[in-house]
């Protein structure tokens, strides 16, 4: 197990690391479950946009057997850490299954932590005592474990949504996909991330996607509003323990969508708000809505380059920054929606795709399962 305590290099979370990236996503609008093979093939094409210091995937609909349980993915530094963390999990959750996430040896994937998953549900008694709703209960658990610098320093919640999971590691994304044997899973939505950090100790927890509950975010960019967003979010109990943009963006979505009850369409209007000069030209109704969102949630405006894919139960949102400083293309073919940093990543798995286009700056493209429409 990689032990960073003796090195001078700081772990992600102790230090903020800017990075450039590749992202790709596939979404089956009719809910067809398809293997993770395609997403590996897609992200592999953009090998040059990663530098081997982080890759990862999120899959939705992959745990149909346990779809009503929170699938908690964990990284542990050691067996000792696992013991401590499981005591904590046991205190708050009951679970039907706990197991090591299946992996296979891969020559390029090294220094793996202990990787576990639990299909869990909150203990009724604890949940009642907490006087909060179930999702908040799970979110708080995850946030606290990840912010714990003390007893649970060696334990990290990687994802904790229902019927979804995040798989990430230190390495090139295509190698990460093979390592986790993602071709053996089937899901209706996959996103992938290849990372190009400017410096890194090579820590698994620092790879992306980043998740909270069923939200998962892959992101390419470096947001200049980071600390303004972070300090605002921390008012509401979020601890940005990884100090990454992706983490902050995930919390923004969680705060606005889950806690404040805004539709994702409006969340996008907050994060990549149009310029005041654009709002000026809108009709009265639209102007009122956009003006309200900027006035009310201006602290969550995200500036600087980003293109993100947000996975959530039953849908996928693609969003670029307000100046369109990071590439992102998307298109449809039959039942599937594709989006990626580069067109080649889509063509690699769907050569016949038509109508590929770049969403406009700040334009949110949201696709949902047809059954949910």
């Amino acid at each position, binding site marked *: 197990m990689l032990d960073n305590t003796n090195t001078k290099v700081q772990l992600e979370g102790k230090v*903020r690391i800017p990075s450039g990236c590749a992202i790709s996503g596939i979404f089956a609008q009719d809910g067809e479950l398809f293997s993770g093979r395609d997403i590996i093939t897609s992200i592999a094409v953009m090998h040059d946009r990663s530098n081997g210091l982080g890759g990862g995937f999120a899959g939705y609909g992959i745990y149909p057997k346990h779809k009503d349980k929170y699938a908690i993915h964990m990284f542990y530094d050691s067996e000792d850490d696992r013991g401590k963390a499981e005591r904590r999990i046991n205190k708050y959750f009951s679970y039907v299954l706990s197991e090591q996430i299946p992996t296979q040896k891969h020559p390029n994937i090294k220094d793996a932590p202990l990787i576990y998953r639990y299909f869990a549900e909150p203990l009724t008694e604890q949940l009642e005592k907490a006087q909060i709703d179930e999702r908040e209960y799970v979110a708080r658990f995850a946030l606290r474990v990840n912010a714990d610098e003390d007893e649970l320093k060696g334990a990290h919640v990687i994802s904790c949504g229902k019927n979804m999971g995040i798989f990430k590691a230190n390495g090139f994304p295509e190698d990460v996909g093979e390592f986790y044997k993602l071709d053996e899973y089937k899901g209706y939505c996959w996103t992938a991330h290849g990372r190009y950090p400017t410096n890194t100790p090579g820590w698994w927890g620092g790879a992306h996607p980043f998740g909270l509950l069923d939200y998962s975010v892959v992101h390419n960019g470096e947001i200049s509003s980071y600390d303004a967003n972070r300090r605002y979010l921390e008012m509401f109990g979020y601890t940005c323990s990884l100090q990454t943009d992706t983490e902050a963006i995930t919390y923004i979505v969680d705060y606005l969508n889950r806690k404040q009850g805004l*539709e994702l369409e409006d969340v996008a209007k907050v994060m990549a708000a149009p310029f005041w000069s654009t709002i000026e030209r809108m009709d009265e109704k639209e102007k009122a809505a956009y003006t309200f969102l900027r006035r009310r949630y201006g602290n969550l405006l995200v500036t600087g380059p980003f293109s993100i894919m947000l996975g959530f139960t039953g849908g996928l949102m693609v969003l670029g920054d307000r100046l369109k400083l990071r590439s992102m293309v998307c298109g449809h073919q039959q039942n599937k929606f594709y989006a990626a940093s580069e067109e080649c990543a889509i063509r690699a798995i769907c050569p016949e795709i038509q109508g590929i286009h770049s969403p406009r700056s700040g334009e949110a493209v949201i696709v949902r399962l047809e059954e949910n429409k």
Partner: protein
Amino acid sequence: MDLYVYPEFEVVRNEKKCICCQACSRQCANLVHSYDEATDCMEADDSKCVNCHRCVTLCPTKALKIVKSDHTFRPNANWSQATINELYLQANSGGVLLSSMGNPQPHPSYFDRLLLNASQVTNPSIDPLREPMETKVFLGRKTPVPPLEANNTTAVPEPYNPDGTLKTEMSPQIELSMPLMFSAMSYGSISYNAHASLARAATQLGICYNTGEGGLHKDFYQYGPNTIVQVASGRFGIHADYLDAGAAVEIKMGQGAKPGIGGHLPGKKNVGQVAQTRMTPEGSDAISPAPHHDIYSIEDLRQLVYSLKEATGNRKPIIVKIAAVHNVAAIASGIARSGADIIAIDGFRGGTGAAPTRIRDNVGIPIELALACVDARLRDEGIRDDVSLVVGGSIRSSADWIKAIALGADACYIATGALMALGCHLCRSCHTALCNWGIATQRPDLVKRLNPEIGTQHLVNLVHAWQHELKEVMGGMGINSVEALRGNRLMLRAVGMTKEEMNMLGVKMAGESA
């Protein structure tokens, strides 16, 4: 016989260049210069000179300069010349020393030891000449208004109407084209023409100026949408129309230059329209008590806040202005919970028309630290959205302004800087009411020296220049809207600070990665 104090400044006249035009003697309200017919020469009485540079500026041959006297006591690192002279003055008069404008002591500046960030490689900088760069801000409560009787509730209201449209109602806010305002200076402490300049400039710039505690002259009601009307402990000039005239109402609890001290407009300044505007008897001293006598605690403040909200039909945000004192974070938290929409904090370097010297120079804390700890405290308590933070107290340049915003301010107040744009040369003699620049005086022949056309233009130029600089810096950081700079402390780094200082400011050491 009085103890003699040697003049602080000497008027140096280049006799070769002086053409005896007498502009200096005509312009000096302190009567320093005079023309001696017998010798056909200009003379100067150094003892009267306050070093305001009026004569220097107007001299057509540039024959004048003012130098600090090199007259000296036996050098003493403990007893400075100023300390000795002030002691003599007090031995002569038995009085409290008075002075004006901001604290001139060499206390450390934290702004000067903070450095800003810029993008390189991983994140593109943005060119403000080619891309939109937004500086517009709104000040006031962002969260829904709590009714007077409600407890602080954490329940989140449903954001949509039954028909699916967004609920867009908000608490009253002030809209500013950039996060900058002219701070409170009363009509009385400054002249009609100074007020006219501030009001017109604020209107042209789309920002606000502040009436101070002297009421609002009837001529200036037309600038109401760009006016903040102040309610201070003396309650001068306050009536329903006055409260209604402005964009916001400010309750002045304290002032950075003289925390814990009220105000005193001498009877000789309280004349004519000044007295009328203040609604006080002409020639009487207009005294603002040190505290508001209806506010002896935080719960009393809440009553005044809500009284003013009611008096203005809940249409105006209420600002509570306090001086930066030791316990400022806790006080600010109390104010935020008292229903105020905006908290204004004035640092210990803030200016004044008159204050006891010892108080001006020794009471209060730096605005950088006050801002940092108030912003952090309000966030820790989860109530930062309930109020906007406006800070002042020596914002000397756009650099200070930008750093204050990055530390967490929603906007800054400037006053000393604004007066300097009007001609003030920081001679710190406002309390003599003989301002040669027509700013801090009510003598008609002096007031006339400030032509508001020129004053307005200089203010507009200054603020536009700062706005350009703000945009350039934001662009360099890759930020294209000022709300993303607000509280973005990663954009700041410290040089020459102790660990405690950096902790208090919430910033990292220069060279340290984010």
